[in-house]
């Protein structure tokens, strides 16, 4: 049964075809998104399983206005939030805006005194070197920022789809991506990695 037909018949019983369709079309990108959030493979699988169960139990709520994949990402995000909440306090990125503004002088140009902001081209790192340190730096991001960054960079979701999945506005999404990206860049530079 094509994904959209699941929505057209929300009261129809869940049969093997519905389950197969869900798993074949959506399990891999949900799994990779959960891994992108920093969960290990067993927890990522558990999150995907919970996502599918939640969808099948409440698929009447899927009205077909968005793509099914977007709706499933939204469920995954909520499941991940519940899990993170149980694990304790999240890091904060409130200081990022002030730190960012501090990198510029009054006329809006980069502050030339901050030489460490910019490496010489030959000191730039390869993507593989960045990847090694990125996992550590991602742990310093709150879940919302990690989810926005992962869905944008890994899954290539558009702004409207991201807003739908994260249940947020375009403005707030912009804040999440701005703070998340700058936090990652600052973290990598603090570890001696020049990503550019």
């Amino acid at each position, binding site marked *: 049964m094509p994904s959209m037909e699941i929505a057209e018949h929300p009261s129809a*019983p869940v049969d093997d075809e519905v389950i197969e369709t869900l798993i074949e079309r959506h399990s891999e990108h949900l799994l990779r998104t959960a891994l992108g959030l920093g969960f290990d493979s067993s927890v990522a699988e558990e999150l995907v399983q919970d996502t599918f169960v939640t969808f099948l139990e409440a698929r009447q709520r899927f009205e077909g206005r968005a793509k099914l994949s977007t709706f499933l990402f939204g469920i995954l995000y909520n499941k991940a939030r519940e899990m993170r909440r149980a694990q304790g306090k999240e890091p904060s990125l409130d200081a990022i805006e002030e730190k960012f503004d501090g990198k510029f002088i009054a006329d809006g140009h980069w502050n030339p005194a901050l030489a460490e902001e910019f490496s010489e081209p030959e000191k730039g790192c390869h993507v593989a070197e960045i*990847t090694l340190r990125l996992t550590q730096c991602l742990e310093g991001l709150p879940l919302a920022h990690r989810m926005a960054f992962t869905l944008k960079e890994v899954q290539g979701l558009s702004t409207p789809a991201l807003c739908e999945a994260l249940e947020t506005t375009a403005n707030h999404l912009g804040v999440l991506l701005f703070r998340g990206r700058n936090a990652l860049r600052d973290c990598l530079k603090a570890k001696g990695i020049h990503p550019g």
Partner: protein
Amino acid sequence: MGDIDCRRFARQVATHGTPQAEGPLATFHYYVHWMLCAFCRQYWRDMKNIGEAHRSKITEQPLDLPTIQGRLRHHLKTRFPPPS
């Protein structure tokens, strides 16, 4: 350097990655600034490489998908048995 300063350029890159659809003139000024400012080009490269590193790490991570999907299938079919 174009009708956009480094702070605004950097904020645009970190927020949207590419010029927002603010119209052809705004897009033109963005690209002029990108061409003229080496620091902003580096910042843009930093963000591009960070995104690429995350993407390649996640998409290239080996997964035993058939086994995982088998477990998912088993769980869902147990949880939602076919109607009798």
